[in-house]
């Protein structure tokens, strides 16, 4: 009995020392998970998650400070991907932070209303607005993420969010059986023939 106690406790002591050493020696610095989370976020930098940008939100998720369902631009699919990555339960998108738009949007400045105040330029997180004081501003459509951050500062309310025009080039085939509302109604065209179901 004494022998049993002595052996076990001696082993425990030794392993304790090894663990104590290992804990100091092999301490992991940094957090690569943040990068992985960040890469799943849509990078709209919209701040709807209440964090200033996507990366801060990624850090917050990694630290367990924020739930994964606060990113409306990413939508439910991003929540699923995050849940997958972090191996946590899939949550439903938190509606408090906004709704997900299926159609990608870009900002559009109504030219006749813009007074050239530059306030939207300061608000844009990705430098997608061009212009100078007292001159009309314009959006660089290719760079705009549709984050809506330029809407509130505009004093004359001249910015709209409009859906990106779908072109033939970025038209997508649908899976068999899925129906898509085509943007142009073909039946309106003269001489159209109908087919399909």
């Amino acid at each position, binding site marked *: 009995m004494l022998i049993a106690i002595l052996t076990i406790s001696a082993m*425990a002591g030794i*392993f304790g020392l090894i*663990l*104590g050493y290992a804990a100091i020696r092999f301490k992991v610095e940094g957090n690569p998970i943040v990068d992985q989370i960040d890469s799943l976020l849509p990078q709209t930098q919209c701040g709807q998650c209440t964090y200033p940008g996507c990366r801060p939100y990624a850090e917050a998720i990694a630290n367990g400070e924020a739930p994964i369902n606060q990113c409306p631009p990413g939508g439910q699919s991003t929540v699923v991907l995050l849940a997958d990555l972090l191996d946590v339960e899939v949550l*439903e998108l938190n509606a408090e932070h906004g709704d997900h738009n299926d159609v990608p949007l870009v900002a559009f400045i109504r030219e006749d209303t813009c007074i050239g105040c530059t306030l939207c330029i300061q608000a844009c997180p990705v430098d997608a607005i061009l212009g100078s004081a007292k001159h009309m501003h314009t959006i660089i459509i290719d760079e705009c993420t549709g984050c809506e951050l330029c809407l509130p500062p505009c004093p004359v309310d001249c910015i709209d969010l409009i859906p990106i025009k779908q072109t033939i080039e970025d038209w997508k085939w649908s899976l068999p059986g899925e129906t898509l509302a085509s943007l142009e109604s073909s039946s309106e065209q003269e001489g159209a023939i109908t087919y399909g179901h």
Partner: protein
Amino acid sequence: MNKEITQNGLWTNNVALVQLLGLCPLLAVTNNTINGIGLGVATMVTLILSNTLVSLIRGFIRSEVRLPVFVLIIACVVTVIELLMKAFFFDLFLVLGIFIPLIVTNCAIIGRAEGFASRNPVGASALDGFMMGLGFLGVLALLGAMREIIGSGTLLANADLMFGKPAKALTITFNEDYSGFLLAILPPGAFFGLAILIAAKNAMGVRAKDRDTLIDPTLNT
């Protein structure tokens, strides 16, 4: 808090049906009800004791030796239970055999120690251990009953092993001529049975959710 712990252990986060932990003994011993109850009780006692002890030392535990200490506690508890069982329920021990020592490696126990007891007060931890154990016990007993009824047409056979001679009367035989459905008693039956239980639980979950949304369409969590 207490209600939540109870609900978690028995249903929402059930060890066997949701966390899918401790499947090895679960699948192996549940070929009749009494075996299931026996192992379930042993696991439950272990869970309560280990959760309590872990919770007691949670204040001054060092993180690097945290897991070895938990394992040590669990191993000691299990060994003591095994010894006690050998001393007082020897016949049942003969049936449950190696699965009693195997409780040490039941992930559910270390999982609760790490996930709950190490960051909650003693009372809550003990309750969590009890409820988690009860949930596990419930599944074991249910699965054991299912397999016993289908496999050999009886219920609570060998009850005397656990409750002593008079308990023999507890055994219910449904059909004397039942030739038995071996698959249910053999290991594959355990998988089928567990799968059916999990499916049933999920189906009930889905249905409950549907009902919630029916009652209150604005409730969208």
